[in-house]
């Protein structure tokens, strides 16, 4: 215990190195076991088939029965499967539609349930995840021409569950090929299949719980598989005969049907021709009607125009009439007013006249009286005195001026005296009094009474003047009125004439309008008739064209039938013999991938642990050796005191063993909890069945523990060997450096004192120096392995996706859909994308007895050259495929042992063999590319290659392109090379992680072991260094002195480390490679520089830490 505390760092370093060795081996070994266990559990749970029998021409019920009857076979179940396309939204994906089984290859329902109806299906988990399809979604299954695929009754399915299928253990990155859509058996057309299956899953009799990776199982299974293989040829031959018979019958049936069809076609042609003639007649009629209609239409338009003119004129006249009427009415009113005024004036005139008459009467009476007075009454009475007169004011000559005094005497108004004179003169004329006239006149004039009338008479005069004036005005007004009346009457007459004319015009217009409407209606009717006629004609035409189309279709169908029948006849004539393929568990890619991974991991574990074990043993040896050296004298004393060798040894054994065992325990824990976890986490991304639980292996663990103990014991023993051998006396003395005079003399002349001293230091402390060199070498090895892995993958990725494959998308299409290629190319041209046409086929190939999938590409040299660089694996020179033979990639040539000139058999989709020879080997890192020239393809397959895919690059938006292409019939989807790149990157990220872990390990190794060793070295040299310092060596000089050895050991360690690292890196890369994955195996100078550089950095850091001791040396401690 005291030893341990004193040698803490050394003890820890043994613990650490033991831990690292154990961690590396067991951690990786556990991980390998974990991988196996996880896969085995998956297969066991889902009753993974032990064998699968696939027939090129279906398996009959008899075949299944025969399989079942094979010795060692426990169960057989037939499976329907068909390759088709899944359509979900704009996504299209090639899938295998597989019937669900009951006992073998059962599925693990992860979500939802199993189908209960024929239109329900379940999807393999990764397929659903890749297309983002959820339970409840609807999908369509179809062929490349969007029609339901052969043998499948249903096209549309509802997804009711997400499942895992034992055939698909690998994730898509690890397992290429179509994923499954699983449907009930009834979804397949079992009648069409006539009770046959596409393949049969076979379960062997075996012990419960035995792992499918177990060697025992594999051995037993091989026996049964061999039995199946023995049967396959005979069964296949039987099936061939059966198929031929069925085909011949079908051809006969078909011919009959075709003949019937032909007769029907002839009838139909005749009917169609008749109908065509009818249609032509109708067309002519329609044309005539159209001409007539056009004339009528013109006339109607004229009539309408006239009517419109008439209507306009009428309206104008009406307006005029209305205006005239208004004027007339106005004039009437004015006239009526005037008339009324005139009547008033007349009345006034009459009234005035009467008034005047009354005055005149007064005057006359006066005169009369005067006369009477003058001449007696009698005389007076004899005179015929005028009575008052009336007047008609309407007479123009009417006047109030005239004053009828007697019947015969009328005077005009003048002075009363003259009136009297005239009157008297008059009256007296002829009478006795004539002579006396003057006297009488005088008398009268003198009469009083006469005097009395003078006054009224004066009034009369003015009255008469007024009346005459008024009368004159009246007459004028009357005249005016009469003129107006006359005018009015004239206007009225004109108006009435107008009214009469208007009424006449209106009548004419209305008559015309009625006539127009009638014609109009007649026209519309005619037009409708024409339209109806036209529609009828169209209908007739359509019916006819439908009829024609139907007929053409029927003809096509007939021709197709003929072709099909011919093809069927040809097929029958060329019908290949049926072939059976029997696949064992390894035939499943997922199984094989897991197996290879687990095996490779375990190999890597072995490689790493060898390194750690080597370093570990040496560290124990050196540490214990140094302890022994330090305690030489003590040991010598102990020995001298009578202790046995074994007692002394026990002390060191305890030291070494306890450290080793603690390391082992820590290593087991670290391996189990950390390394295994990391490896499993890295690998579980490749497999579908979720998290991988850790596995523990008690037996290997125990063996490792025992081995570690033994190794540690041996190391201690070796280290202590001299101790045990030497007698106590010798041990108690100082050691003498083994200096040989010869060497000294030789070296003296050449080497400086320093170099000599270092060489002697090295020689006298070999154990420590060797371990230091080994540790540095180990550290450098780990680093170089790390960088080799890192550059191996990253360089491979950059070469593959930078130089080799330069296409970015593969657009697949069905070459049988003739328009597909042109339509797709059209869209690509519009997008400005230039495509290379290639034939791309996933074919199985057999070479050297091993079968593996090839992605066979055949195209014109320029098409290949544009998007794929083929470089000769030997020379690195680029080339294009030419001539006959297949070009395979290097990894394939290695794994299958194929070289130029070797025979390879390619199996087409129908498993027909086509023999080719290897024409060359090219460099490729990811994928299973194989190339044929067009000529080579024709030679191998009999036909020139028809393109079924387009390679493009530089598409800015592949998703949008997919959307555009997806409606095209025959478009089979776009594969993005970035998917492949993703899977490569995934490997890359795992290896980068591993590189990180390795750098960490190297750092740990450097830290714990180198620090220990350097510490050891310094402790040993402490006295020397102090003396140097005391003697005036500067700290720098002392450090330089100490570092010389470090430089020497580091350089040596790096040299060994680079060598070993390159070798181990190469080995590990080879272990990691798969059939379709190759790394760049050459160690890059950059990797070497980095490894060396980091090693130097580590040692420099460790020395910087350790050399602090030199700075802190206490000179007084000597």
């Amino acid at each position, binding site marked *: 215990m005291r030893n341990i505390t004193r040698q803490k760092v050394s003890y820890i370093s043994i613990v650490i190195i033991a831990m690292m060795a154990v961690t590396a081996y067991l951690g990786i070994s556990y991980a390998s076991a974990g991988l196996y266990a996880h896969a085995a559990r998956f297969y066991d749970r889902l009753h993974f088939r032990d064998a699968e029998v696939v027939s090129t021409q279906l398996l009959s019920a008899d075949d299944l029965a025969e399989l079942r009857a094979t010795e060692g076979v426990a169960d057989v179940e037939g499976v329907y499967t068909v390759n088709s396309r899944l359509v979900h939204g704009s996504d299209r994906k090639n899938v295998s539609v597989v019937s669900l089984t009951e006992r073998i290859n059962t599925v693990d329902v992860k979500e939802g349930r199993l189908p209960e109806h024929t239109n329900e299906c379940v999807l393999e988990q990764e397929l659903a995840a890749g297309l983002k399809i959820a339970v409840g979604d609807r999908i369509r299954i179809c062929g490349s021409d969007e029609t339901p695929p052969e043998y499948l009754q249903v096209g549309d399915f509802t997804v009711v569950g997400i499942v895992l299928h034992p055939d698909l253990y690998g994730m898509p990155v690890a397992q290429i090929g179509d994923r499954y859509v699983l449907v009930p058996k009834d979804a397949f057309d079992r009648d069409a299949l006539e009770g046959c299956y596409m393949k049969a899953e076979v379960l062997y009799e075996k012990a419960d719980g035995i792992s499918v990776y177990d060697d025992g199982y594999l051995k037993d299974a091989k026996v049964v598989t061999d039995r199946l293989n023995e049967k396959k040829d005979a069964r296949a031959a039987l099936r061939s005969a059966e198929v031929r018979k069925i085909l011949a019958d079908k051809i006969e049936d078909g011919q009959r049907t075709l003949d019937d069809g032909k007769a029907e076609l002839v009838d139909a042609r005749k009917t169609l021709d008749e109908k065509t003639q009818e249609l032509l007649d109708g067309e002519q009629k329609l044309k005539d009607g159209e001409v007539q209609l056009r004339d009528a239409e013109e006339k109607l338009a004229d009539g309408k125009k006239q009517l419109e003119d008439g209507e306009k004129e009428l309206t104008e006249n009406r307006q005029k009439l209305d205006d005239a009427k208004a004027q007339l009415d106005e004039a009437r009113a004015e006239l009526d007013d005037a008339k009324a005024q005139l009547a008033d004036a007349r009345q006034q005139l009459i009234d005035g006249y009467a008034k005047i008459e009354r005055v005149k009467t007064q005057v006359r009476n006066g005169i009369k009286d005067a006369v009477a007075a003058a001449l007696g009454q009698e005389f007076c009475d004899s005179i015929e005195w005028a009575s008052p007169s009336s007047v008609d004011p309407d007479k123009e000559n009417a006047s109030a001026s005239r004053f009828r005094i007697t019947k015969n005497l009328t005077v005009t108004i003048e002075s009363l005296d003259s009136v009297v004179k005239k009157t008297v003169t008059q009256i007296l004329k002829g009478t006795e009094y004539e002579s006396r006239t003057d006297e009488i006149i005088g008398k009268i004039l003198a009469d009083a009474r006469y005097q009395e009338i003078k006054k009224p008479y004066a009034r009369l005069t003015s009255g008469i003047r007024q009346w005459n004036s008024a009368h004159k005005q009246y007459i004028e007004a009357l005249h005016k009125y009469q003129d107006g009346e006359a005018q009015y009457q004239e206007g009225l007459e004109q108006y009435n004439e107008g009214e009469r004319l208007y009424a006449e015009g209106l009548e004419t217009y209305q008559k015309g309008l009625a006539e127009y409407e009638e014609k109009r209606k007649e026209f519309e009717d005619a037009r409708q008739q024409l339209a109806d006629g036209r529609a009828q004609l169209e209908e007739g035409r359509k019916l006819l064209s439908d009829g024609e189309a139907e007929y053409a279709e029927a003809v096509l169908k007939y021709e197709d039938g003929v072709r099909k029948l011919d093809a069927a006849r040809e097929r029958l004539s060329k019908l290949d013999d049926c072939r059976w393929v029997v696949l064992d568990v390894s035939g499943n890619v997922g199984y094989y991938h897991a197996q290879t991974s687990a095996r490779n991991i375990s190999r890597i574990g072995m490689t790493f642990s060898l390194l750690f074990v080597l370093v570990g043993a040496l560290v124990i040896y050196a540490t214990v050796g140094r302890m022994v050296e330090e305690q030489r004298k003590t040991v010598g004393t102990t020995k001298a005191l009578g202790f046995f060798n074994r007692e002394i040894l026990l002390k060191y054994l305890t030291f070494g063993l306890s450290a080793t065992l603690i390391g082992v325990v820590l290593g087991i824990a670290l391996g189990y909890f950390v390394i295994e976890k990391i490896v499993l986490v890295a690998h579980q991304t490749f497999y579908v069945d979720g998290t991988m639980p850790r596995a523990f292996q008690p037996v290997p663990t125990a063996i490792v523990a025992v081995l570690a103990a033994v190794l540690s014991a041996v190391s201690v023993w070796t280290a202590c060997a001299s101790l045990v051998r030497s007698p106590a006396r010798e041990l108690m*003395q*100082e*050691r*003498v*450096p083994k*200096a040989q*005079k010869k060497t*000294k003399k030789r070296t003296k002349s050449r080497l400086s*004192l320093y170099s*000599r*001293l270092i060489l*002697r*230091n090295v020689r*006298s402390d070999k154990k420590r120096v060797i371990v230091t060199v080994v540790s540095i070498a180990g550290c450098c090895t780990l680093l170089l392995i790390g960088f080799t892995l890192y550059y191996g993958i990253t360089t491979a990725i950059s070469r593959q996706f930078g130089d080799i494959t330069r296409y970015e998308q593969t657009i697949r299409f069905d070459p049988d859909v003739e328009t597909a290629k042109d339509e797709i190319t059209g869209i690509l041209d519009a997008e400005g994308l230039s495509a290379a046409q290639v034939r791309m086929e996933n074919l199985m190939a057999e070479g050297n007895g091993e079968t593996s999938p090839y992605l066979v590409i055949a195209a014109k040299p320029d098409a290949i050259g544009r998007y794929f660089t083929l470089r000769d694996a030997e020379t690195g020179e680029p080339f294009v495929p030419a001539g006959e033979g297949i070009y395979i990639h290097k990894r394939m040539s290695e794994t299958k042992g194929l070289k130029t000139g070797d025979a390879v058999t390619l199996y087409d989709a129908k498993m027909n063999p086509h023999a080719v020879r290897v024409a060359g080997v090219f460099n490729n890192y990811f994928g299973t590319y194989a190339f044929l020239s067009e000529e080579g393809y024709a030679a191998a397959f009999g036909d020139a290659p028809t393109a079924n895919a387009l390679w493009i690059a530089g598409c800015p938006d592949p998703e949008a392109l997919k959307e555009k292409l997806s409606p095209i019939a025959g478009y089979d989807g776009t594969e993005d090379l970035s998917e492949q790149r993703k899977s490569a990157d995934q490997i890359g990220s795992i290896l980068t992680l591993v590189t990180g872990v390795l750098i960490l390990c190297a750092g740990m190794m450097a830290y714990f072991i180198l620090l220990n060793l350097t510490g050891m070295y310094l402790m040993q040299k402490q*006295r*020397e260094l*102090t*003396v140097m*310092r*005391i*003697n*005036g*060596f*500067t*700290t720098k*000089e002392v450090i330089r002195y100490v570092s010389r050895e470090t430089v020497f050991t580091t350089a040596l360690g790096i040299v060994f480390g680079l060598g070993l690292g390159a070798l181990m890196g190469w080995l590990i890369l080879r272990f990691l490679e798969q059939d379709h994955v190759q790394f760049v195996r050459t160690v890059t100078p950059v990797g070497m520089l980095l490894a060396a550089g980091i090693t130097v950095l580590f040692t420099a850091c460790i020395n910087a830490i350790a050399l602090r001791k030199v700075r802190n040396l206490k*000179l*007084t401690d*000597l």
Partner: protein
Amino acid sequence: MAETDKKLAKATWRIMEQLLEVENLDEALSGSLEIIVQTLDCEAGAVWILDPETDRLSPLTHIGPIDLSGITVENGVGIEGVVTQSGRSVMIADTLKDPRYEGSIFDDQGVPVKTLLCVPLNNLHETIGCVIAVNKADGTLFEDDELRLCERMASLAAITIDEKGLSLPAQEEKRVMISLKDIIKEFPSGESTIRVLKGINLDIYENEFVVVLGESGCGKSTMMNIIGGMDFATSGQLIIEGKDFSHPTDDELTRYRREYVGFIFQSYNLMPNLTALENVQFIAEIAKDPIKAEDALKKVGLLERANNYPAQMSGGQQQRVSIARALVKNPKIIFADEPTAALDFQTGQEVLVVIEDIVKNQGTTVVMITHNAEIAKMANRVVKLRAGKIASIKRNAHPLPAAEIIW
């Protein structure tokens, strides 16, 4: 009082023994001074002898924290001079209060005098020097009884000198190489500190052989580490070749060790992987002005073993290689830390002979630590350390040759 008397009487008796019976007067005087300093519990003390030719006083021996070696004082100056000139004892109980006090060499050298006794060495005819004791450790003042003890000792000493004759060594004017003033070294110990050196004052002169004596743990190695440039003083002044080295940088120290100093260790410390010659060459390579490695080996008489590894040689031979290694740098000073401690008498003596030879014939100064008082007899000066202070520095007027030393 009676106890003091008894103590003084006992001291007187011991002084008498020393002075009357001892063969070597130097030692007798220094022993007597030691008794006085012990008995009176003084801080320091000295015996000064007057050189009538120069009329100057020089210290014959002294005790205390300061190195008085090499100091001379004019007669009549200072308390020592006054007493020697007047021939009368002086006791100044309190220097601060007594107007007679006019200073002392102790004051000049850094020990402030608080109380003192100074007694003349009077023989029948004249005064030949004085004895001085200063400062009591307990801080009390000197008393008359104590003066009497001194006077008694002085009388005895004067008589003895008269009888035996005292031949003072010619006072060579030696150059001081290294000077330590008030060097204090403390080491941390837990929360407190341990003061290992409590104020060392020492001069090392050119071409002298100084032996440092002292019990284990008295601080002699610590002092040597400081002088040797391997450690720093906590405080105080270290002057090397007139240059202040009190606070040197690591580089300065390294250069000092490299160019100025040679080391000889008790445990040889040779490089096991180098031969004798190579061990010497190894160091010669860094020296500024080395002598030939072969010559160095020849000097220690090991040329014929030049190609032997240390493990192939005896301890004495290894130590001689170690001396050759120190010599090869042609250093001004060699520090030797118990070089003979691990050797038997015979080989030890061989080693001492070599060292003696170095001092005599190479003019190198050697400072050697030993706990073997016999070896001190070959030194020019013997410095005794006690509890981190210099107990005494004695000048050997007549160093013994190494070959004559027996232990």
